[in-house]
């Protein structure tokens, strides 16, 4: 049986802890081991950090969609153009944020699949997958 949860936060530093709390609650939906939950919290925190730096000064939101289907967890993250910056290791914006320079290696190390997919409305969303 598939479960899907969606939520939106302002792209502001003080809301990142809220995202980690939400991820922690996933263990009540599916009995993930503690290491998996901690990894997912870290990944979500890295994504939020990157998008917050990208949207600095501009009011924007970050949208999350989390789907658990059998042995597969899918995270879709959308914050307009910020996702393109996130996966571009040559991005000058990315390089400028020294807090973010370790983010991509952490995300790719902890997730099984990281890709940009079209949302059908003319722009891409970041999709992360974890298989169990």
């Amino acid at each position, binding site marked *: 049986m598939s479960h899907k949860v969606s939520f939106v936060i302002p792209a502001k530093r003080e809301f*990142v802890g809220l995202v980690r709390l939400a991820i922690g609650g996933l263990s009540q939906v599916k009995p993930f081991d503690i290491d998996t939950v*901690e990894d997912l919290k870290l990944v979500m925190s890295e994504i939020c*950090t990157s998008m917050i730096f990208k949207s600095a000064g501009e009011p924007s939101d970050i949208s999350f969609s989390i789907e658990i289907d059998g042995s597969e967890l899918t995270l879709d993250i959308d914050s307009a153009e910020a996702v393109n910056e996130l996966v571009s290791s040559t991005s000058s914006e990315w390089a400028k944020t*020294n807090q973010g320079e*370790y983010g991509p290696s*952490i995300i790719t190390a902890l997730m099984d699949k990281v890709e940009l997919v079209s949302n059908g409305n003319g722009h891409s969303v970041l999709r992360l997958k974890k298989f169990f």
Partner: protein
Amino acid sequence: MDLKIDIGEKNGVVLLKLDGEVDVYTAPKLKSRLVDLVDQGKFKIVVDLEEVDFMDSSGLGVLVGGLKRVRSHDGAIALVCTQENILKIFRITGLVKVFPIFENQDQAVQSV
């Protein structure tokens, strides 16, 4: 979500004991403390991460920035950490080769 920072000193080495979460929201507080210490001429620092519940790359970035600052004055930063969930991000990013990491404060103080 908060980060508490206690500052002490042992054998001429500054001890920064962190308690809480280090992320994009709280990391500026840690950065500010490290910058203040360097401005005060404190270039040998031990950062104790034993009570840190969570840390992401924001914390790593601040620690690396602090290391660059103290090294420009021939100083050093050593870490105290035995928590696997925190050590993991140092391993993933290769920073275990940059920071000396010890199991207790005494070993860390001796190293710097």
